[in-house]
């Protein structure tokens, strides 16, 4: 932990509101990138983001600073997002319908916004990946964690992270290729 961050955490442990607020301000973007990367930009992501900070504040008395605050918060965000994915899986039928609707909307829009459409396609493709691939891609490519940090957050071996990254990217490339083929 850096010195100012250390001080913020110390004050947050004592329950100072300004310190809690500061932590949310510092890590909001990191948590948003993680949660939205995993779940897509749906209505429930805000709730998962809030819950991430609530859980972090609850666990503050046990936080001893062995890992970076960012890594610790990201781990909570990843776990909550993956749990949400499991919950969604139970409603798989509904999700499929939403996805089909999203793709249809995107196709209509793509005639006008082709550059934005590619990013859209990638975002949608990412949502179709299996959670284990999605998690490593979000942490490595969106949050910019190294493979070592990604492995630490997900409690995996670095070799596993590298292999999931490779397989995830290969699958994503295939999904996007299928989308383009389908569109044309």
């Amino acid at each position, binding site marked *: 932990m850096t010195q100012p961050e250390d001080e913020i955490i110390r004050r947050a442990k004592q329950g100072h509101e300004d310190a809690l*607020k500061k932590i*949310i*301000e510092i890590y*909001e973007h990191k948590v948003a*990138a993680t949660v*939205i*990367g995993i779940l897509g930009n749906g209505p429930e992501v805000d709730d998962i983001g*809030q819950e991430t900070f609530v859980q972090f504040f609850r666990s503050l008395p046990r936080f001893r600073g062995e890992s970076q605050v960012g890594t610790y918060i990201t781990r909570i965000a990843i776990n909550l997002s993956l749990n949400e994915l499991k919950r969604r899986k139970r409603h798989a039928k509904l999700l499929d319908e939403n996805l089909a609707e999203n793709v249809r909307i995107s196709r209509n829009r793509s005639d006008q916004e082709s550059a934005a459409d590619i990013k859209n396609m*990638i975002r949608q493709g990412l949502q179709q990946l299996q959670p284990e691939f999605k998690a490593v891609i979000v942490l490595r490519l969106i949050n910019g964690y190294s493979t070592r940090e990604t492995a630490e957050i997900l409690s995996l071996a670095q070799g596993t992270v590298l292999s999931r990254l490779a397989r995830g990217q290969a699958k994503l490339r295939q999904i996007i290729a299928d989308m383009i083929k389908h569109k044309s």
Partner: protein
Amino acid sequence: MDTGILKLLYRSLDSPLKKKERLRLDRALEESEELRQLRSELVAMRQAITEGAVRSFRPQFVERTMSRIQPTRSPANKWDVLLGAYRTAFRFVAIVGLIIIAVLISYNIAHKDLLPQDAIFYASDLTIGKLLQMPVF
């Protein structure tokens, strides 16, 4: 395409390769247009993933989160904390008391030849009336 080369290509994007592996990949890239194309696509895709990420929640996220954590810090919950502390303290007293009683009963049972059955379990026929008549009072 050679699976080994493909693995090296993917790995090269996230981790440094050994000198020998680097040379092998460079040679393969020089020789294969398809491999170069794949590498360009992957680099572009990774860049689009990084740049296209949404990195903010709805406006006023900080305020919403703060209002959500407020109830856990309200006075009502301070009472819960106080009650919890009392419960913890008295649990200790109760456990120690039970241990002492168990030890005393065991001791009495061990000396049952000297004690009547009632006295082993501290069951006395002493009433409050008799107690009050004692010279102490």
